[in-house]
């Protein structure tokens, strides 16, 4: 009777202090004029004003929107397509599955460094194609301010779509065969049975995938740091990089805390509707 509670107590305390306690602390910090160290002179929303007046924060936020949408959509599409192809009872499925899943096993730092070399005009794709004889070929997204954020999308999609594939594959394996057969008997084509029967069943998998991918997107830090270093200039900054730079390198803890709070609200904006729909679903069920 008491045992489970006693066993859970340390974890609960650790969670309450280390997660929620520090969330509150960061929230409080964001209303102070803290610079290098925490200082408890409250200044209201000044740090938030400063934050949103900062052009670099604008760049980081709009990058997050671009990166988030593209990363989630492309990973979902590629992951789903791979899963459906793998589900056609092909040969060597286990081997292929492992190959696609493998990028998940390396850290974002490794991914970022490898793609930095691949995308570097003097080392990677551009040089390769030029060496083949196409001397006018240009592929310079990595060093182009306008395009640098898309290189981060490329690397992140490469890393995560295998994982999305594995999730969908598990979902597909859970689909009741009799439903597909029934659809076939009713004269549905393969395309129609996927679109009208199987995908609706996979709805919970979509949800889980979107939630996991969006929190990867919001907390992305190491990939940017390794791949572009936020550059050229600060063109490929994401909010997490902004927060780190301001809180730790620039002695502007107040602005850093404010940006961290905005990121928290970003996560909540995604999580709350999800949890709401999940909980409502389980009550109904």
């Amino acid at each position: 009777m008491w045992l489970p509670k006693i066993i859970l107590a340390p974890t609960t305390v650790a969670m309450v202090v280390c997660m929620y306690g520090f969330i509150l602390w960061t929230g409080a910090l964001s209303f102070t004029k803290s610079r290098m160290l925490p200082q408890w002179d409250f200044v209201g929303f000044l740090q938030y004003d400063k934050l949103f007046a900062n052009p670099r924060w604008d760049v980081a936020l709009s990058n997050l929107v671009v990166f988030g949408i593209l990363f989630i959509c492309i990973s979902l599409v590629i992951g789903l397509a791979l899963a459906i192809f793998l589900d056609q009872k092909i040969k060597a499925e286990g081997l292929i599955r492992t190959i696609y899943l493998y990028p998940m096993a390396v850290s974002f730092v490794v991914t970022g460094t490898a793609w930095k070399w691949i995308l570097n005009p003097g080392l990677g794709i551009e040089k390769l194609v030029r060496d083949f004889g196409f001397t006018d070929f240009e592929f310079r997204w990595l060093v182009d301010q306008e395009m640098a954020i898309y290189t981060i999308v490329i690397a992140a999609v490469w890393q995560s779509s295998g994982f999305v594939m594995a999730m969908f594959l598990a979902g597909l394996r859970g689909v009741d065969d009799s439903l597909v057969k029934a659809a076939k008997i009713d004269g549905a084509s393969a395309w129609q049975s996927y679109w009208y029967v199987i995908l609706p069943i996979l709805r919970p998998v979509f949800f889980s995938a979107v939630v996991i991918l969006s929190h990867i997107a919001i907390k992305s830090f190491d990939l940017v740091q390794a791949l572009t270093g936020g550059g050229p200039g600060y063109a490929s900054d994401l909010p997490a990089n902004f927060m780190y730079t301001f809180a730790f390198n620039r002695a502007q803890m107040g602005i850093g805390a404010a940006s961290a709070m905005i990121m928290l609200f970003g996560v909540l904006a995604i999580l709350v509707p999800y949890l709401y729909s999940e909980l409502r679903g389980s009550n109904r069920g």
Partner: protein
Amino acid sequence: MLNRSIAACFAVASFVVSPVQASEVEVLHWWTSGGEAKSVASLKASLDKRGVAWKDFAVAGGGGENAMTVLKSRAVSGNPPTAAQIKGPDIQEWGELGFLASIDDVAKKNNWDGVLPGVVSDVMKYKGKYVAAPVNVHRVNWLWANPEVFRKAGASIPTTWADFMVQAKKIQDAGYIALAHGGQAWQDNTVFEAVVLGVGGAEYYQKAFVDLDMTALNSSTTDEVFKVFGELRQFIDANAPGRDWNVATSMVINGEAAMQIMGDWAKGEFAVAGKNAGTDFVCVAAPGTSDGFTFNVDSFAFFSQKDINKQNAQKAMAEEILGTNFQEVFNLNKGSIPARLGMARTKFDSCAHDSMNAFVSTAQSGGLVPSFAHGMAVPGAVAGAITDVATNYFNSKTSPAEGKAQLVAAIQAAM
């Protein structure tokens, strides 16, 4: 307050446990690479002779960012090291927070006001009292050139920015990269700083980028600065973004590129490659800045200590740092020049001699200005804002007028 009382408890506790503590200094620094580590070892040795034990507290990496994070947590928990490598306006910031100890009596005894140039000693003082000791002076506005490339391209080493554009064009036409550069924010800012000094002169530099005078920042000189800075974009190769500064230096060493604008720490790279100053490579002031000197001074700041033994050890360390022996050994290894004026020069190379001459003459003429790109001139927030504008401008096609507007807005927002 709580921190203080906890610290006091610890201090009492440690006193009870070990009443006879030999004097010891614990020093936080990030000088861990070859030449730097050697320099630190020499300080350790000379303190040993005075019976002061050295407790090394090196936190490597990130240009000191990691070390600063550790220092903050140690200071907040009431247990700061005896001394830490802190520089520029950060010293004021720590002083304001009430962590630093005055070493004014050591300074008075050893006549620091007499041996240090005024601009340097000002940085070391908080409210008129010395709280830090300078170890070296880096000159940031250097142009490193490969004379072989210049010969092949039929170009001459430029002394003004107008001439730079002409010569760089010649070099580029001859098939070399004119300006070796690493597209990282701080390197963009280092070049920007050289342009500011070269185009605007020391007076403008001081007004606009040290005193942050809005009239100077809004003047037409700023337009001209951004115009010249923008023209440099064309002389850099496409692979520059993200490149480390020493890789860029090696491009000059290998003869791939003709020039690099970088502080005197670049000299170490030439030395490691076995190149000689004057023949294999040339060091001259960045275009238009021969009568200017942007300085970057490394220093140790001293933290308040309760224990009298530690206070004495701290003072011994301060004395050693400004001693002629340490200043010489350290700077020979680091590539910089001594912060102390009037030292023997025979062991230094020709680049260092140039730097020393310029240091003395600019200290008198007013051309000696703190480097804003290396955290010497303005508080972190403003320095960061300038860096953002410079790197964003350099990597885009922004017009000079827009660049100026962004700079003014960013500095105003950060002040």
